[in-house]
């Protein structure tokens, strides 16, 4: 028996990148109606999409910064380079 989980997961992912055709949207919806694992997959991806939106919104307050050690490492390397030239 042929399963459409592979195609459905690909189409659902494509839906984040481009507008799906009506036929593609219907195929996804019909398959999700019958398939629990794919419904879970879609639910998981929708959650991740919301998380990434939230991350981007709060990027400045939550994003990592250069550590003091990293800054020193960069300064040392840059100074070695500038002095050599």
């Amino acid at each position, binding site marked *: 028996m042929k399963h459409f989980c592979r195609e459905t997961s690909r189409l659902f992912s494509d839906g984040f990148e481009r507008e799906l055709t009506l036929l593609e949207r219907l195929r996804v919806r019909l398959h999700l109606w019958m398939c629990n694992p794919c419904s879970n997959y879609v*639910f998981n991806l929708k959650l991740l999409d919301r998380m990434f939106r*939230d991350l981007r919104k709060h990027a400045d307050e939550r994003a990592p910064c250069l550590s003091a050690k990293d800054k020193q490492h960069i300064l040392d390397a840059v100074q070695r380079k500038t002095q050599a030239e």
Partner: protein
Amino acid sequence: MGESTNIEEWLDDHGDYLYRYALFRLSDAETARDIVQETLIAAWKAGENFRGDSSPRTWLVGIMKHKIIDHVRKEIRRRDLNDAAESDPTSHWFNADGSWVDAPRAWADNPETLIEQSRFREALRDCIGRLPEKQRSAFSMRELAGEDSDTVCNDLDITPTNLHVMMHRARLALRSCLDIHWFGGSRAS
């Protein structure tokens, strides 16, 4: 040592911003730091060309963009040679009949508030960091930096179809990684 002072100022004033800019597009802390370093060196070398038409930050980001694109394109070309032998990029996740090898399950644990936890964000970054280089860059540019598909295709010099395949594979791998390392799935990816 006037030039070095300039570099120190750039690093103090814009270092964190540049680091995040690179990190959101590369998802690799060490490479992001190296790109900041290369950007400052390139800026120092090109210092005479900075005429003050734009802010120093805009100028530095402009230099950094090229550094990032060069780095990623180089990696993609290098990895493409290794990936050529792989005939079916999703065979790891699906059986020959098209069904899932490991059926995805619902995530519990109040997921809507997870992103506010720094430990979860670390796990998420770690899982993105485990993606193969070209998937990681494409995925990071789209989802962390929020670039649109056209920009990512142009920057990485790939077709939309290539991008869609990369994003599909990255989503499969990322979901699985989080399932195993955060939500308690039992099987290794």
